[in-house]
């Protein structure tokens, strides 16, 4: 099934869940042309936020992605508290809920390196490009090499654009 990325982000945002978009969708936000299938978010692991997260996703019937049907998986505050990272499928598609990521840490560690984006009136945090590269590098997975190369190329292209924009100003000074 396809993932409704904007629908999932909107669901979390409208419920005031504290989260940061990371992974492939964050890459898309920064300009990546690569296809990704799931939404990866780092969520804040405070008791209040876990309650908001569970309530927000409950109507979407979250279930363990790839697991056979009928497993005794209970979507609850306790389940989230006892675990850390969850790979889920919902009625809006695939979502990975990450309490912590390699090379980046937790929500509190990543927040200073994130930017606020607005999607249809909903503000949400997206991991900044440099930190997205750092965490993908830290993960050290060969499958990410092409993605990292593209993200670094985006960083270079953005720097070029900024440099071009700055030129008229410097010429007039």
């Amino acid at each position, binding site marked *: 099934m396809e993932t409704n990325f904007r629908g999932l982000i909107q669901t979390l945002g409208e419920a005031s869940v504290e989260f940061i978009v990371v992974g492939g969708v964050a890459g898309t936000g920064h*300009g990546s042309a690569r296809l990704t299938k799931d939404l990866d978010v780092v969520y804040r692991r405070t008791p209040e936020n876990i309650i908001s997260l569970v309530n927000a996703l409950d109507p979407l019937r979250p279930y363990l992605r790839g697991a056979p049907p009928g497993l005794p998986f209970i979507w609850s505050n306790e389940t989230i508290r006892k675990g850390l990272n969850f790979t889920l499928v919902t009625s809006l598609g695939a979502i990975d809920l990450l309490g912590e990521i390699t090379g980046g840490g937790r929500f509190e560690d990543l927040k200073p390196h994130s930017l606020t984006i607005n999607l249809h009136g909903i503000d949400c945090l997206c991991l900044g490009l440099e930190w997205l590269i750092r965490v993908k590098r830290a993960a050290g997975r060969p499958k990410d090499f092409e993605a990292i190369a593209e993200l670094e*190329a985006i960083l270079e*292209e953005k720097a070029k654009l900024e440099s071009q924009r700055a030129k008229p100003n410097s010429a007039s000074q």
Partner: protein
Amino acid sequence: MLVPVGQNQFIMRIMFETETELEPDPVIEAYKKDVDRTLIRENLKLTIDERLRNLEALQQFAQEFRAAVRRATESGN
């Protein structure tokens, strides 16, 4: 705290990676040669919302295309 030299070097490496500018990685630099920058330049002209819409459309197309290939394979074409 005193730690073995090897471990200390590892810790210094982590600090360097997270607190300073990204150092070029020769493996990534090799991959970078094959990146299609024309796609990146086009994407950078779009808003974030437009980029996400394109991703969803691409995902939908990929699924439809895969299904079409599967049907064709199964029918022996």
